[in-house]
C-alpha cells in the first residue's frame, strides 16, 4: 500500500520535471528564466527542421532564434490543447515558409545568370557525391511536396504530426508525400543505375 502510494506521489514529480506543460505553466506564472530550459530541450529539433527544410545551414541559427522569440512572446497565450512540440514545429515550418516566400520574391529580381550558374556548375562536377545529388533533387521539389517528405524521412514525423505542423489534413499529407516521391523518382531517373546499385 505504502509503496504504491509513494509511487503515486513520485509520479507527478517526474512529470513536473520533464513535461513541457509544467515548464510552460511555471513560465506563465512568472518564472521567465525557465524559458532557457525549453530552448535547450527543443533547439536541436527546431534547428534540424529548418536545416532540412531550407537545405541551407547558414541561416539555421537566425531563423531558429526568430522561432524561439516568437514562442517566447506567445507562450503566455498557449492553450494546452495540443502538444507543445506540435506548436513549436508549426511555428518553425511557418518561419521557414516565410523565409522561402521572401527568397522567391527576391529571386524574381535577381538576374537569371546567377540562378542557372549554380546547377550547371554542380552537374559538371566529376566527383558526383550521391548524397549531394539527392539533396539537390529534393531541393528542386516544390515546398508543399518537399517539406512533408523531409519531415517524414529525415525527422521521422508521423503523418499526424506533419498535418498539424503544416496545418492541413492527414490525407493531404499522404497524397503530397506520394506525389513528392513520384517527382523525386523522375528527377533521379538518369542516375537510376548508380542509385540502385
Amino acid at each position, binding site marked *: 500500500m505504502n509503496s504504491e502510494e509513494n509511487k503515486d506521489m513520485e509520479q507527478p514529480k517526474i512529470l513536473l520535471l520533464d513535461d513541457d506543460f509544467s515548464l510552460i505553466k511555471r513560465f506563465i506564472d512568472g518564472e521567465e528564466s525557465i524559458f532557457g530550459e525549453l530552448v535547450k530541450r527543443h533547439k536541436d529539433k527546431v*534547428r534540424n527542421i529548418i536545416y532540412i527544410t531550407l537545405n541551407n*545551414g547558414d541561416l*539555421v541559427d537566425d531563423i531558429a*532564434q526568430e522561432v524561439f522569440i516568437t514562442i517566447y*512572446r506567445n507562450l503566455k497565450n498557449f492553450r494546452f490543447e495540443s502538444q507543445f512540440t506540435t506548436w513549436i514545429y508549426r511555428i518553425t515550418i511557418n518561419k521557414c515558409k516565410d523565409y522561402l516566400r521572401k527568397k522567391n520574391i527576391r529571386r524574381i529580381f535577381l538576374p537569371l545568370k546567377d540562378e542557372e550558374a549554380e546547377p550547371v556548375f554542380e552537374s559538371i562536377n566529376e566527383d558526383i557525391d550521391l548524397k549531394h545529388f539527392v539533396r539537390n533533387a529534393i531541393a528542386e521539389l516544390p515546398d508543399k511536396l518537399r517539406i512533408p517528405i523531409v519531415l517524414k524521412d529525415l525527422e521521422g514525423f508521423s503523418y499526424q504530426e506533419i498535418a498539424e505542423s503544416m496545418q492541413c489534413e492527414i490525407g493531404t499529407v499522404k497524397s503530397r508525400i506520394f506525389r513528392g516521391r*513520384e517527382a523525386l*523518382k523522375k528527377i533521379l531517373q538518369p542516375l537510376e543505375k548508380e542509385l*540502385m546499385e
Partner: protein
Amino acid sequence: MKKNKNEKELLSAYLDGELSHDEKKYIEEQIKSSLELQKELVDLKKLKDLTSSSMDRIPDSPFFETRVLATLNQNQSVKFRFKKWMPVVALSVLTIVLMIVLKLNPNFISNMIEEQKSNIAGFYKENLRPLLYAANLSNEDIFNFAMYQQIPLDSNKQQILKLGYDPQGKEYFEIKRADENKNDQKADNLEKFVSALKLDKQGEEQIDSIINSYSDQLSSLVLVNDKNSVAINPTIWNTRKAILADIISFAQKSASVNFSKIVPNEIANLDVSALTKWADESKNIKDKQYIFFTPDSIFKDDFIFDMAEFKKNMKNMEVEIKNLNKDSKNIKSFSVRIDTTFSNKKNIKNRSQQFKIFADSDFIQVTIQNFNIPDLNIENLKIPDFDFIAKIINESTQNLNIVKPSVPQMPVNSKNYNYESNKTKSKNKIRVDINLDSLMNLRNLITDSVRSQQLKELQNLNDSLNLNFNYFLNDSLIFMQNNELKKEMDNLRRELKRFRDEMKNYENKSDGKNQNNFREIKNNGVRIIQI
C-alpha cells in the same frame, strides 16, 4: 489507372507505416499478387533510404540558447515594441491634427504668433512713464540734448540715449552706458552758454522757461519703465531741432551782439522768424508710433501716451498717498490705458528689415531702415543744419573759460631776494649802493637757478609736479619782481632828487670849485657817490 495510382499512394503510406489496419491488410494482399507493386515497393524503399540518408544532422550549436536569451533581453516584450513606435505614432497623430486645424483655420499659426506678440508687447508696455519722472530731467539735460543729441535715461545718468546719423544719413538710436568723464565735462554747458551770452537775470529766467517748456514734450517722447524697456517716438528728432531752434532764436533776439560773437555770421544772421515758425509747427506734429527697446526685442508699435492724463493720475496718486498716510486704507490702483492690439500692423512686410541693430554688452545701436520721421513741409523756409549749429555753439562755449587768476604767495624770505635800501641814513653823507643791472642780474640768477633746479626735478619726476613747476614759472613771479623794482625805482628817484638838491646847494656854495668833482661823479655814474 486511377486504381493503380491509388494503390501506389497506399504503398507509399504502407512504407511509412501510416495505414489503418484494413488498408494495410488490403495492400499486403495486392503486393503479393502484383509483381509491379513489389518492384514499386522496392524502389520506394530505396528512395526513402536515399532521402533519409541524404542529409546529415546539423552540427550542434552550444551557445544557441544563450544567444536567444540575450536577444530576448534586448527587446523584452511587445510593450517594448509599442514604446519604440510610440513617438512615431504620436508625431503622426499630431501632424494629422495640425493638418486638419490648419485646413479649417489657415491663419491659426499667424494668429497665435500675433497674440503672443501683443502679449509680450503688453508686458513691456506696462507702467511706461515719461522720462521726466524717471530721470529727473533738468534744464541742463535738455540743453545738452539739443546740443549733443544725448539724454540720460535714468536718474543716476548711467544710461544715455543718443541720436545720430550714420554715414548714409539714416537716423539711428544708441542706448549706451554713460561715460562718466564726459558727463563731468558737460555738466555746466547751459551755464557756459548763458554766461557767454552775458544774459541778465531776466534773460536767464527766460531761457530757463523756454527749455523747461520742452520738458513735458520731450518726456512724453521717451518713455521708460522698470522692465528696462524704452519707448522712443521718432518725432524726437524734430523736437530736438525745435529746442535748438528756440534757443537760437531766443539768443538772437535777446543777446544778438554776444551771440554773434560766439557763432559765425551765417548762423547769427539766420531768419529768426522762420526758426520760431518751424519750432512752433514741429510741436504740432505727433506720431503715434513708438519704437520699443526691450531687453529681448525691438519693435514698432502704436502707443498713445496722454501726458495730461498721466499728470492727472500722478496728482491723484499724490493725493491718494497723502490720504493713505492718513488712514492707510482704500488703495486704488492707477494705470495708463494702452492700445496693445497688433491688428493694424498685420500688413507690414519685411519686418526684419526695419531695424539694423548693433549690440554690445553696454551699448545698443539701432539704425532705422524704412522709417520716415514725420517731416515738416513749410514752404520758403530754409532749415539750417542744426547739427552744424550745435557744433559751433558747443565749440564756442566750450572755449569760454571764466578766468579766476590765482596769485600764489611768493616765498620772499630769502636774503638773496631782499633788497634793503638805505636803512641807515647818514645826515651828511648819502651813500646809495644801487646798481639796477646788478639788481636785475641777481634776480635773474636766482630765478634761473630755481627754474633749472625745478626743471631738473621735473625731468626725474612725473607730471604731478607740473603744479609746482607752474608755480615758479607763473607770470606772477615777474609781476612780483616788477612790484619790487617799482618800489626800488621810487626809492632811487627820491634819493636822486635829494641828491640833486644837495648838489645844487653844493654848487652854490663852492661856485664851480668842485666842478671837477662833480664831473667825476657824473662820469662814475651812480655807483659811487661821494659828497
